[in-house]
């Protein structure tokens, strides 16, 4: 037990030292360069803002987390569904794929106000924007995974009278799981960005709302604190998916980078 603890400390000590150095450099830079706190607050002020009881942190974190999870869930379900359709039908792939690409490239921030105008000033447009931002990697990675099956495996299953569904469910889908988890990891981080961007456009609560509101009111320490919680939320979400991947695909663990 003690040996594991020491091993853990040794493993993460360099990262912790780097973090401590970054915070110290930040504090020194603010002092030496005389940067006003409304532009870059010292770390201590940000730390105080993180535990400021006058800010309803649990509420704001919950609002953003809900938007991220809802948009991400929609991206996963519809992304995997669409990838299956694209792999099964060459014709649909030719028709739909350009639109998927278009939806990815189009600057969401430019269209966000229209979504709010159309769907009202509630959380639905934020979830839609989160979905749009997170959707693309799910489709592309899943489609790549489904298409990665060795053709000889397909032929083998068909020779045993396997249906198209059997090939998909029993061979293509399991083979695509590492790809799907890659898509999940990328999409999860994009979902955090998407929800935040949407909250910048319109929100009554949430971490993105706090960042914009604190910038307008020149409360930079609050903006930095909200950004810190947003980063922690994103990291927690990512870690959850990595844990799920390790549980689902234990054989892939030694080859994993993250």
């Amino acid at each position, binding site marked *: 037990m003690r040996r594991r603890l020491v091993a853990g400390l040794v493993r993460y000590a360099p990262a912790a030292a780097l973090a401590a150095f970054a915070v110290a450099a930040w504090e020194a830079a603010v002092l030496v360069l005389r940067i006003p706190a409304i*532009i870059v607050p010292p770390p201590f002020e940000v730390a105080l803002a993180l535990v400021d009881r006058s800010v309803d942190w649990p509420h704001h974190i919950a609002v953003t987390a809900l938007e991220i999870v809802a948009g991400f869930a929609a991206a996963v379900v519809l992304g995997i569904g669409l990838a299956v359709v694209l792999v099964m039908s060459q014709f649909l792939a030719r028709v739909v794929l350009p639109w998927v690409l278009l939806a990815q490239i189009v600057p969401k921030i430019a269209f966000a106000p229209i979504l709010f*105008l159309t769907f009202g000033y509630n959380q639905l447009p934020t979830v839609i924007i989160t979905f749009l931002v997170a959707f693309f990697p799910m489709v592309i990675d899943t489609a790549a995974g489904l298409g990665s099956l060795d053709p000889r495996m397909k032929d083998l299953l068909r020779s045993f009278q396997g249906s198209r569904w059997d090939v998909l469910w029993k061979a293509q889908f399991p083979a695509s799981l590492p790809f799907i988890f890659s898509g999940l990891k990328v999409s999860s981080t994009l979902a955090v960005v998407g929800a935040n961007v949407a909250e910048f456009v319109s929100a009554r609560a949430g971490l993105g*709302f706090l960042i*914009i509101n604190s910038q307008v009111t*020149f409360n930079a320490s609050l903006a930095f604190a909200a950004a810190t919680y947003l980063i922690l939320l994103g990291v927690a979400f990512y870690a959850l998916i990595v844990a799920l991947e390790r549980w689902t695909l234990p054989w892939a663990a030694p080859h994993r980078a993250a």
Partner: protein
Amino acid sequence: MRTQIRWIRLAVVVVALAALFGGPAGAADAVKFKLDFSPVGYHAMFYSGVSRGVYARHGLSVDIIPGTGSYAGVMDVAAGKIDFAFADSATLALAALQAGVKDVKIIAMVLEVTPYSILYLRNHGIAKPPDLAGKTMANFQGSGVGRLFRSFARINGVDASGVKEILSAPPTYLNPLVVGQADFAPSTVNQTVNLREPARQAGNDLAEFRFVDHGMNIHGAALIANVQTLAQRKDLAKRFVQATLESVQWTARNPEAAVDELLKSNPQLKKDRALAELRSILSVSVPRGTTAGDPQQLGWTDAGTMVRTVDLVRESFGLSQQVDPAALYTNEFVTRP
């Protein structure tokens, strides 16, 4: 027995009538009201109206929606997605001139005098408006007040041809001014109180040229509504204007208490800063609200000031289109001072 039945019937009728006319929560009309920006100090005028029950007393259940600039508010009202918005008069004039928005009117002028001002650094060799010539302006893309600087320059003898610009994102575009990378910036009086101390910390002496003191006496932000709302829900508009003006006047007389009310729904705001900001807006832009006169003095849109507002927007934005300034407002919902 018959007498008892009669009493029971009477009681049933009384209860039914009470349910019909006495149920305040269920009877209130829902109103969507969009602000010009994310909640700041001067929005205490509206939030206190909700928390103190002023709107409720007028039979209104007001849902305040944070804004992202006056232009978005005008467009939302034009599209009928929002019942009322708090938007800048000059921006409404711009929307009418440039985008042909015809269905939106001012129904009560809240900021009778524009809070626009040019923030500048005294220690950068600026003492009077002509000194702005050749200096660097902090601005953001699409800034209305930034474009109005053209008219400000003409009226105040500033040679604007040599003025350089630093463009950045709207919420943080004043940062270059605070640290002295820019010499001046178009903004509003409430930002002067926010930025004076941070600028001093960075070794700069921040001051302002208020538009109103420099030949730019135009109207500020107002309550706006769609003409369809005014035609179909006139009584609603009237109650909304009355309740809002009551709340504005109470705020003008009780700024500290109003900020306390604001903080109930926006606890992330800092009280001292919100109060300073509110006081600066009240002192410059709501001159009548501070007196103990007729509450209906507030809200009046002045014909001459509106003509000047439209003219200066046309000049600043280089627009050739025409719009009748009288078509942009109605004083139907306020009493003449």
